[in-house]
């Protein structure tokens, strides 16, 4: 923790200079230790490193640092060794002594443990060579590689609070707002409203009290950009908020984080405490006469809280019910006072824009969408993780350039963006630029940045059913179009998925979707039908196949498929017989076992148990199975 309490801008600058002078020539080992890293064993790697360093007598010669998320989440736990930026992926504690001896003692990278690209079979030694990192523009994420998220000193060392000291050195609030407007920054939470315009409206509103809120209620399943930022660099978000407070004239800010993110909450609490102790928040900040304080609010598990008016209700201690807009929160928000709500990533961009200038920021992006955007690239893509790319990049460049394309032998079928409010785009749209307008026109949304890549093994009926189930559970129930509409859609989709749908159901879904879009009270209801409507727009044949042919082409919908043992491939090892939880596979001594379709629940355990060298269990459509059986019994 920073040992000082700063009373003036000059003191901060002097302290920062002294930190630079202290620059440490020791090697740094940075361990990726955000939630994903910890789940994969980052802390065990850390203690193995500590132990091994002691054994080699290197404890004083090497700095160990638990950082936030390095972004290459699939290859957790991983470490980066500075100054070379050597990258060691997927580590196991027993590999650590070797790394300590070769790399930390002798300075050599161990190629056998380096990252091997399964696509081009090449070995990449450093982070900067890796295609996954090389093709990104990591303005916000780069600091995550070597920043200790619990240390204010480390943040100051990374140019932290330079933006705030610039602002407090005589800038007038309107200038700051002009700067943000000129940068073209738009809200990163999904809707893409201009941040500068929002701030100006709040600045102009006359009131005795104004508030700021950081929306960290990242509820979209499949998205974790904000968790990454909150866990890895909480200070940058808070610096953005202090600057925002100065610009609009607010004295109080709230950071709202969903309770499903315990580590993010812990990091944020620590960061706020440190800022208060160091004098970056509180009364008369750095002697500027400007006072501003921050408070952390923990959510309680409700997706709808991410909607801005619902979030306000939740901070006030009420049920998270959205309300009619207008009046917008910039006019009447928290406790009816003008309130600016921005997403985590938007706040994190603010210090960057102030430090680098709006011209620097807006040189990247498209006409209307400037800067970079963080996406959580997940699903069936070869390399999953948190990626930051310039807006306007095409979907294909993200998936193939950064994500390395799909896994061996898989073909891309759809890309889902924007979570339960977004849509599924087909492979034919891979040239679509990723910006707010283009995604909207294609029937999806930017959303907060979830990007889920799906292959031929994903069924669009099943996926839309999943999203609608989610929306109907999370609907707050205030307005009928959302409450009843999502429920009806679930009912119809279930019918289709079990092969009992009718063609007229598709028209019914579209009509319902239209009603929900036009009639719902808040954004959740208005966008809840998007997954269905976009799927019907691009994948209608798949729905029709379920209805007319009673087949699930992706072989996912349980009621329409069956498992079968291929006698040509089966070697009668009987692993599946033992594995079947329902005793549905009958052993025939020395012969190929047979699946009893009456007992089979299509849980798929046999399918994943059968050794890949045999791959003798296959999925078939239930209809063709029945026809085969009929033919056989007819022949007897």
């Amino acid at each position, binding site marked *: 923790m920073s040992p000082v309490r700063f009373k003036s801008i000059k003191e901060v600058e002097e302290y920062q200079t002294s930190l630079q002078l202290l620059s440490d020539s020791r090697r740094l080992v940075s361990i990726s230790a955000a*939630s*994903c890293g*910890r*789940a*994969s064993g980052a802390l065990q790697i850390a203690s193995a490193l500590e132990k091994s360093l002691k054994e080699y007598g290197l404890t004083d010669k090497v700095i160990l640092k638990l950082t936030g998320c390095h972004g290459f*989440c*699939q290859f*957790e736990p991983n470490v980066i060794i500075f100054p070379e930026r050597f990258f060691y992926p997927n580590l196991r504690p027993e590999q650590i002594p070797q790394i300590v001896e070769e790399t930390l003692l002798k300075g050599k990278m161990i190629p056998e443990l380096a990252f091997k690209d399964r696509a081009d079979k090449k070995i990449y030694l450093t982070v900067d060579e890796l295609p996954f990192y090389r093709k990104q523009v990591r303005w916000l994420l780069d600091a995550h590689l070597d920043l200790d998220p619990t240390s204010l000193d480390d943040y100051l060392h990374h140019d932290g609070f330079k933006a705030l000291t610039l602002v407090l050195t005589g800038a007038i609030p309107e200038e700051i707002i002009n700067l943000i407007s000129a940068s073209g920054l738009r809200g990163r939470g999904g809707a893409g409203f201009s941040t500068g315009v929002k701030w100006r409206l709040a600045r102009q509103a006359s009131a005795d009290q104004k508030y700021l809120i950081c929306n960290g209620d*990242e*509820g*979209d*399943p*499949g*998205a*974790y950009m904000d*968790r990454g930022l909150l866990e890895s660099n909480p200070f940058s978000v808070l610096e953005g908020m202090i600057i925002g407070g100065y610009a609009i004239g607010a004295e109080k800010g709230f950071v709202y984080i969903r*309770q*499903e*993110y315990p580590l993010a909450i812990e990091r944020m609490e620590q960061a706020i405490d440190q800022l208060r102790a160091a004098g970056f928040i509180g009364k008369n900040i750095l002697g500027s006469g400007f006072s501003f304080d921050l408070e952390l*609010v*923990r*959510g*309680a*598990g*409700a*997706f709808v809280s991410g909607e801005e008016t619902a979030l306000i209700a*939740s*901070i*006030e*201690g*009420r*049920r*998270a019910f959205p309300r009619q807009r207008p009046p917008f929160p910039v006019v009447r928000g928290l406790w009816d006072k003008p309130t600016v709500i921005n997403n985590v990533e938007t706040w994190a961009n603010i210090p960057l824009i102030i430090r680098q200038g709006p011209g620097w920021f807006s040189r990247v992006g498209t006409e209307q969408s400037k800067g970079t955007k963080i996406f*959580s690239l*997940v*699903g*069936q893509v070869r390399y*999953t*993780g*948190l990626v930051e790319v310039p807006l306007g990049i095409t979907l294909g460049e993200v998936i193939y350039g950064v994500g390395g394309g799909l896994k061996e032998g898989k073909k891309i079928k759809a890309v*889902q963006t924007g*979570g339960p409010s977004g849509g599924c785009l087909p492979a034919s749209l891979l040239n679509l630029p990723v910006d707010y307008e283009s995604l909207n026109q294609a029937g999806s949304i930017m959303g907060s940045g*979830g990007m*889920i890549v*799906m292959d031929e093994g*994903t069924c669009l009926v099943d*996926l839309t059913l*999943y*999203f609608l189930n*989610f929306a109907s*559970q*999370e609907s*707050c129930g205030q307005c009928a179009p959302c409450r009843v509409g999502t429920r009806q859609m679930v009912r119809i989709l279930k019918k289709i998925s079990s092969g009992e749908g009718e063609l007229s159901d598709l028209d019914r879904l579209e009509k319902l979707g239209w009603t929900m879009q036009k009639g719902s009270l808040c954004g959740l209801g208005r966008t809840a039908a998007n997954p269905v409507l976009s799927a019907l727009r691009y994948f209608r044949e798949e729905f029709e196949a379920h209805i007319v042919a009673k087949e699930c082409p992706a072989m996912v919908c349980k009621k329409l498929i069956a498992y079968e043992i291929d006698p040509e491939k089966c070697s009668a090892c009987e692993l599946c017989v033992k594995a079947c*939880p329902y005793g549905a596979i009958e052993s025939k001594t020395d012969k190929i076992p047979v699946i009893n379709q009456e007992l089979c629940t299509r*849980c*798929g*355990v046999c399918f*994943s*148990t059968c050794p890949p060298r045999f791959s003798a269990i296959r999925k078939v459509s239930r209809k063709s199975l029945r026809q085969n059986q009929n033919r056989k019994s007819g022949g007897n």
Partner: protein
Amino acid sequence: MNSLEDKAEKLLQTLPSQRQHLILFLHLVQQELGFIPEEVLPLAARHFSVSPSEIFGVVTFYSAFRLKPGCQHEIVVCQGTACHVRGAEAIMDEFSRLLGVKPSEENLQKGIWLKSVNCLGCCAIGPVVVVDGQYQAKVNIKDVEKIAEKLIGKNEVK
């Protein structure tokens, strides 16, 4: 005097009486007692000057709060999109079968709550399961049996 109420009263004393602190209070009660006893609702109502029914409304609106005591073991199976397309549903079914507990049911008799959550934000390492607070990455059907055995003993697993 009931000790539950004592504890709740003590927590209330640490908080200002503005309603904005209600949700924090509920978090604190649940952290300390494992659930929110109904006796606590009138106390909170008095402290924050709102009706008990309002408090009840807040408690039941948010999925984080529960009005009954919890179970000894809590298994959370993430059903986020990325986990879903990697087979989270089958993982849930397998847990349910092996433990003899229905999905989403709080089985007080067995002391197991098999719970689903919409997304834990660990999407790159799915399917994710959290067993008594410990995150486990890339869980497959075979892992489920190991987890279940560790939890309730080999003989109890079906």
